[in-house]
């Protein structure tokens, strides 16, 4: 079990961090958030195309660099810390699912970032796939609240293939019958949309019963989201610690008051736990598939709470300035809340964890 990053992973993180500080500072994040642009195309081209980050965990023969999820997690931590508005998380989850389904023809363009693929995972009733001709499928139904759906060129839709089975379908963004409706979101840095499929032509990827791949994909997504959350959590704590060293009230730096200092110490303890949980879970994705279901449910159950609590406390410790639109604290608070429920309500992750630990739900 490896719980500390490699030298290469640290260097990769430093490279991404300095690129983001330079090219996607908070002013740029806000510019995208308050525009109609779903994501920062320039940054995406650099990160995905030039730096090749989307293909980090994709095998070399499919156009990736064959590094691993430790590297992907290093990138996600930095993107989470900077709230960078790019569909990287969605794209790496989609790339992993494509690899699992052996969709060799689609992988190279997804790995290179030329095609932005995202996964539409229905929470309730899935859309229904129907065969209209030999091997030709169409999808009927809707998927609510799909992150990065508007940014996508290619949608991977989980849909029913009959008799309680689920398959994964590729639907082109310009497919007839596909309607994507952007939603108003609390978190302004990761857009969501409703997807409606009215007989949209679709291609079945892999077997008509892909439940194992779909379940594993949720585990992988939980772990990768946890890495992104870890980055945000750390950035919140760093920011409020810096402020506590500068802000003076009652003739003292506020960080010298135990009421503030002890809260910050507890937040630091949360960070230390969170980093340990995330490193373990990421290691499990790369090296220990047997441990993945438990590790992923652990990461999701721990990080959702941890990030939101630290983001909330960091906002509160700023005092009144933290409640203003101009201050960045609310952007993290909203991201943390949106992340906590993005892959399902916290109780669903706890239910997965209970199942993995042989506890009745």
């Amino acid at each position, binding site marked *: 079990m490896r719980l*500390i990053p490699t030298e290469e992973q640290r260097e990769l993180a430093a490279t991404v961090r300095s690129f983001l500080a330079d090219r996607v500072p908070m002013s740029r994040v806000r510019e995208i958030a308050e525009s109609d642009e779903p994501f920062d195309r320039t940054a995406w081209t650099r990160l995905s195309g030039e730096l090749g980050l989307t293909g980090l965990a994709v095998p070399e023969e499919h156009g990736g660099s064959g590094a691993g999820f430790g590297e992907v997690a290093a990138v996600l931590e930095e993107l989470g810390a900077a709230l960078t508005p790019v569909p990287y998380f969605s794209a790496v989850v989609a790339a992993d699912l494509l690899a699992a389904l052996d969709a060799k023809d689609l992988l190279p363009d997804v790995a290179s970032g030329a095609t932005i693929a995202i996964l539409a995972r229905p929470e309730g009733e899935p859309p229904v796939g129907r065969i209209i001709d030999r091997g030709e499928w169409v999808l009927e139904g809707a998927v609510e609240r799909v992150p990065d759906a508007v940014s996508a060129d290619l949608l991977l839709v989980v849909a029913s293939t009959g008799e309680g089975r689920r398959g994964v379908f590729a639907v082109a963004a310009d497919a007839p019958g596909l309607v994507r409706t952007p939603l108003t979101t609390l978190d302004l840095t990761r857009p969501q949309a409703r997807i409606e499929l009215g007989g949209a032509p679709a291609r079945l990827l892999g077997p008509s019963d892909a439940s194992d791949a779909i379940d594993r994909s949720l585990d992988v997504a939980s772990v990768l989201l946890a890495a992104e959350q870890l980055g945000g959590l750390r950035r919140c704590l760093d920011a409020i610690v810096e402020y506590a060293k500068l802000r003076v009230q009652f003739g003292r*730096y506020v960080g010298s008051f135990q009421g503030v200092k002890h809260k*910050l110490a507890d937040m630091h303890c949360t960070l230390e736990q969170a980093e340990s949980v995330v490193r373990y879970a990421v290691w499990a994705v790369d090296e220990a598939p047997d441990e993945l279901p438990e590790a992923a449910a652990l990461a999701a159950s721990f990080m959702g709470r941890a990030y939101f609590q630290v983001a909330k406390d960091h906002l509160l410790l700023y005092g009144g300035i933290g409640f203003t639109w101009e201050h960045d604290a609310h952007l993290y608070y909203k991201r943390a809340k949106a992340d906590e429920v993005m892959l399902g309500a916290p109780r669903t992750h706890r239910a997965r964890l209970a199942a993995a630990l042989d506890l*009745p739900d």
Partner: protein
Amino acid sequence: MTDLDEYRDQARAWLAERTADLPPDPGLAESRAFMADLYDAGHVGITWPAEYGGRGLSAAEERAFQQAAAGFTLPVGVFGIGLGMCGPTLLSLGTEEQKRRYIRPLLRGEEIWCQMFSEPGAGSDVASLQTRAVLDGDHWVVDGQKVWTSVARQADFGLLIARTDPDVPKHQGITMFVVDMHAPGVDVRPLRDMTGESHFNEIFFTSVRVPVENVVGEVNGGWSAAVTTLLHERVSIGMGAARTERPASFAALRKAARERGLLGEPGVTDLLLDLYLQERAFDLLNARMSQEVKAGIMPGARGSVAKLLLADLTLAGADVASEILGPESVTGDGPVPRALAWAPGMALGGGTNEIMRNIIGDRVLGLPREPQLDRNIPFKALKVGTQAKEDGE
């Protein structure tokens, strides 16, 4: 196979053979005999300097031994304070004569060590200690009282800090000494704690004469020496804990709940999940910090994080045990009532939770320190310990 692998296998084989006939609860004589054999076999003081009785090897050999020892329960607890705290302090601050005199017998278990810092009036604020040492010719004469001293009844020597100059601010008038625990005037009394047992002692000093050559470090320079010793303590408490048995662990409580048919009762799954999350995060943090140490990243003040989280976990585990087991948890002398009685100890020993949070805030996060009202006032002008209320207060 590398030399290290070879050494690891050799150590493992040695331990397997030597521990095979140990009684389940070895007494002091057996512990001493074991320690002497362990030392003679070359497995103690691996990284300590060879000229004082150590082996002078690298951290890699020490690690290899730790890995070899991982599966064994070694009867060496009584030597822990000497090996973990007193020895390292002497190595960094002791005189040449002190190192030659004390280190080898300490390593071989021939002499047991204890540490005497806390006082009834000086708990979190150890620097306000009142035990005094007055110079009389070539001896210091010690009078006062210490408390919370582990293994004092077995100890041959102890590291003591005492007030040697009350006319200067409190941190500047303290000196560290090596004290012979068998000297006249040293009175060790067991302290009965809330478990009903005596795990610690009180020590009373009445005109105890300590030779001047027993000063450790500089006269009036004892505070920085004590800080070094205490940092060792926090790291060893937090990081060693993963190996000890936890009666109120997630696995133990899941088993207890299953045996009683309580799994599925409302709330039980949630209680167990919360405990699991806390326990797993703590264990993974411990594992990560050990990996960092192996990679050459020293935890320093971050040891306080592990200690604070362990204190929370210990209290939470006992509490969850009682919430699940109900009335059964507070009767009899089983593991859960014992865990409930033990639990507060972890949040107090080695520094309270509040002190841990101060250390994390000041030394890990670099936050501004709280103004200290007593920092520049001569010790004799300070109020210390527990004071009666004065009129008008």
